[in-house]
């Protein structure tokens, strides 16, 4: 009993430590002071201010666009890569497995620098001194970061799959292509989904690769692409977190919380839902 209480206290203390910075930001999102720790009266003013701040909104938009596109590309490459590897000869599969492992274990800054020097190299030696850095180099950087994780989340799903399923589909008249769409893909769908989410979060969170590989953006053609990470970094180098960002933190936290609760509830209720679906449809 004593042990149990001790364990509970320990768990919640660490949890508190983990949440203090976030909770402080959330609490001070309801006051307009410049610094956290100074309470200048309760107000919602930071929230409208956040949505009127063009800089933050643009960065947020860039972040989401990059995250969506890069995770979609990562899922496409990672999924086809994993399926292809799984049905290749053993040695070819092992080779792809180990090359895929390089970006996973590599330090992000080394990956980022290696891409940067390659773009510099290609730009100066092949494109005669052209500057290649753009939205596209940034996209490549984010895909290098995420695709290996998509590959890793799909591979086990393929290994767990009954090899006869694909043959059964062919046997029942499906061409290899439709067997792939109707049987293999649905089987690895959970892996694809979790791979997409992982890729999405990796992209959202990324600072180093973005800084190293970015160039002028798609939307704002002249300047350099700012994402949330790079914008926040630029701001906090000069002073405390801008007050509007506190409101943004609160909103992000709420969205994440809703997603987690939603997924948990969905999983909990999903089991009973599926039955008698057709009966009702008819």
């Amino acid at each position: 009993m004593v042990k149990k209480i001790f364990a509970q206290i320990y768990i919640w203390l660490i949890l508190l430590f983990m949440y203090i910075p976030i909770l402080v930001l959330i609490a001070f999102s309801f006051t307009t002071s410049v610094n956290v720790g100074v309470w200048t009266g309760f107000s919602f003013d930071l929230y409208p201010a956040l949505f009127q701040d063009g800089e933050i909104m643009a960065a947020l938009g860039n972040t989401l666009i990059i995250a969506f596109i890069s995770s979609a590309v990562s899922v496409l490459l990672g999924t086809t890569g994993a399926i292809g590897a799984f049905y290749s000869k053993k040695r070819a599969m092992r080779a792809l497995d180990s090359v895929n492992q390089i970006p996973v274990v590599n330090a992000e800054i080394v990956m980022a620098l290696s891409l940067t020097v390659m773009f510099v190299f290609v730009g100066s030696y092949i494109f005669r001194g052209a500057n290649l850095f753009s939205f596209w180099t940034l996209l490549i950087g984010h895909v290098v970061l995420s695709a290996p994780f998509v590959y890793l989340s799909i591979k086990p799903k393929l290994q767990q799959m009954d090899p006869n399923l694909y043959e059964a589909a062919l046997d029942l008249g499906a061409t290899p292509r439709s067997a792939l769409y109707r049987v293999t893909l649905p089987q690895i769908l959970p892996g694809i989904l979790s791979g997409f989410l992982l890729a999405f979060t990796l992209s959202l969170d990324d600072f180093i690769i973005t800084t190293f590989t970015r160039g002028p953006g798609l939307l704002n053609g002249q300047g350099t692409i700012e994402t949330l990470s790079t914008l926040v970094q630029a701001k906090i180098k000069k002073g405390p977190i801008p007050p509007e960002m506190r409101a943004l933190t609160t909103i992000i936290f709420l969205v994440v919380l809703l997603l987690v609760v939603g997924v948990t509830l969905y999983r909990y209720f999903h089991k009973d839902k599926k039955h008698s679906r057709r009966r009702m449809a008819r």
Partner: protein
Amino acid sequence: MKLRFQRKYLCIPYWAFLILFVIIPIFIIIYYAFTDTNGFFSMDALIDFFTSPVKINVLLVSIFIGLQTTLICLIIGYPLSYFLANKKFNKNVVLVMLFIMPMWINFVLRTGATRDVLFWLGINGGTYPYLATLIGMVYNYLPFVILPLYTTMLKIDQSQVEAALDLGASPMRAFTHAVVPQTLPGIVSASMMVFMPTMSSYVISDTLSEGKISLFGNTIYLNFSNSQWNTGSFMALIMLVIIGLLMFVTRNANVKAEDRARGTGLW
């Protein structure tokens, strides 16, 4: 002959992508590490690195702070994962989710918040750069320890612990002899997941020490900002060698790549 669709052809685009943007860049790093600004072969970067007390110092400090962070994270995270994975103390998976949730808030934003809160509490990065950096590192990398440890601890065969107790081992002895050995792979992969990013991190040390502590990551970043590709590449190469060595050692410690992947998979 007609080229028929075969499933193995599907990996061609991914292969091409990895070769273009993972393998070739590494060779270009090696190229830049051993050339000078004019593109001629040169050992300048190597000589510069090993004769510069500042850079050697950066390497040593990076390794030291990496080890320290790893150790502290393990000391905090190990009992925590044990409690979370043990049905006697915790029946709730939601609690585990709570530990992962902060990771979904932007990492730079979280680091900034940590600095502001520490500043508020009086641990000013300008005055206590090392302490502030260490707290920031532990705060950021603790979830990376909890996840792999938690997953290995879930797999612990409880009957082994019971057998140890049954055979007359004290609870403490049963823990050290039946639980700890089974979690070794988790400990190794958790350490890898903390040590390497800590060494090469840029944002945390830069923000929390207000630029006063320079780690390997900061130095590479500085070379990047000044377009010093040769010295930057050489330092990245050093980092690559360290990672390669660590990988070699841990592979020999019989940790499978899958374990690490599972540890990283938050979903």
